[in-house]
């Protein structure tokens, strides 16, 4: 039988991941290099939409839209999302093409804590474009064990 006090003390551990286990700016840069192969990434054409203030990091809606005609000659090949302070820098990588019609991706993600997010798009001409967002995760008072 777990006592209520035990539950209460254990609760923060469920919300916050172990402090040492988060990614870093370098780890995120490395993960981005894995996606781009080291090619330069230009800010623009990508819109990363996520709430700047998040009330619970467990399920955070986000969407990425890339400005592209999505034709056979000019389209987005892939969209990837990275983060700086979750245990792993990678969030999601989507492969798409002209059959998508629009370069759009929406999902729900987890945020261990306040941090910077980066969305990178890989285009058919070999260029890479990005957008970033700074997100603040507020701490909930009432969390359950």
């Amino acid at each position, binding site marked *: 039988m777990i006592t*209520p006090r035990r539950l209460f003390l254990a609760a923060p551990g469920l919300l916050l991941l172990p402090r040492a286990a988060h990614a870093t700016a370098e780890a995120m840069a490395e993960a981005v290099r894995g996606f781009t192969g080291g090619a330069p990434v230009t800010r623009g054409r990508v819109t990363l939409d996520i709430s700047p203030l998040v009330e*619970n990091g467990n399920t955070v809606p986000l969407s990425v839209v890339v400005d592209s005609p999505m034709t056979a000659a000019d389209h987005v090949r892939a969209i990837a999302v990275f983060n700086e302070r979750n245990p792993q820098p990678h969030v999601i990588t989507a492969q798409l093409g002209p059959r998508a019609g629009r370069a759009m991706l929406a999902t729900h993600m987890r945020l261990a804590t306040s941090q910077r997010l980066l969305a990178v798009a890989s285009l058919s001409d070999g260029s890479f474009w990005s957008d970033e967002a700074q997100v603040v995760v507020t701490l*909930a*008072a009432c*969390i359950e064990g």
Partner: protein
Amino acid sequence: MIHRALMLALLALPALAQERRSGFEDMAPQTQAMQRDDTSNPGMLWALEGEDLFRQPAGPAGQSCASCHAEGSMQGVAARYPAWDTARQAPIDLAGRIAQCRTDRQGAPPLARESQGLLALSAHVGQQSRGLPIAPPADPRLDAARVQGAALYAERRGQLDLSCAQCHDDHPGRRLAGSIIPQAHPTGYPLYRLEWQALGSLQRRLRGCMTGVRAEPFAYGAPEYIAIELFLMSRAAGLAVETPAVRP
């Protein structure tokens, strides 16, 4: 008679203090959007499962819920619970009624409190009252439990020595750490709580509040929870049912 007067007095307090509002109003626009859109509300996964379970035969006679309850006949039902259970001579909540139907009428194995099946069926039945006003029955046999619920709500408990009312009546709209304190109207249960990453019942939420103030929570299905629910539903009378809601 004394009970009734006391109850009305207790009910009048929060209503006088401020305009009643669902916790939905206090959520971030993104969380509101998640609830509004059934295709992104994860609670719909449970409601959908409940729809299947409702039609699925269980027990030796091969009866399903739908064998007795016609399609659409559950509309408005969740808005009227807890109700009086004549067989047990006690108030019963919706999940309790579903579980009772299953064992006593279908003769099927019991569905435990907070089990996936019971949550799914409760969500499916609750969803059919969506948008309808909470309408507690006027049954005087429920009065004693409602008064008990009001007393439990006002009673200080736990190592923090806090009552429900001290947060939810005295300080709604203000922040406790990063969270807005809601008025505690149970409009959307069972609901998908982002913290839980799952669907859960009002009893689970009440247990969370109790461990939060470091009190010993009542066991699942305890009459105290049903009494509190009776009181809260009276207090929320007229607000729209949102099941399955989303909350942070």
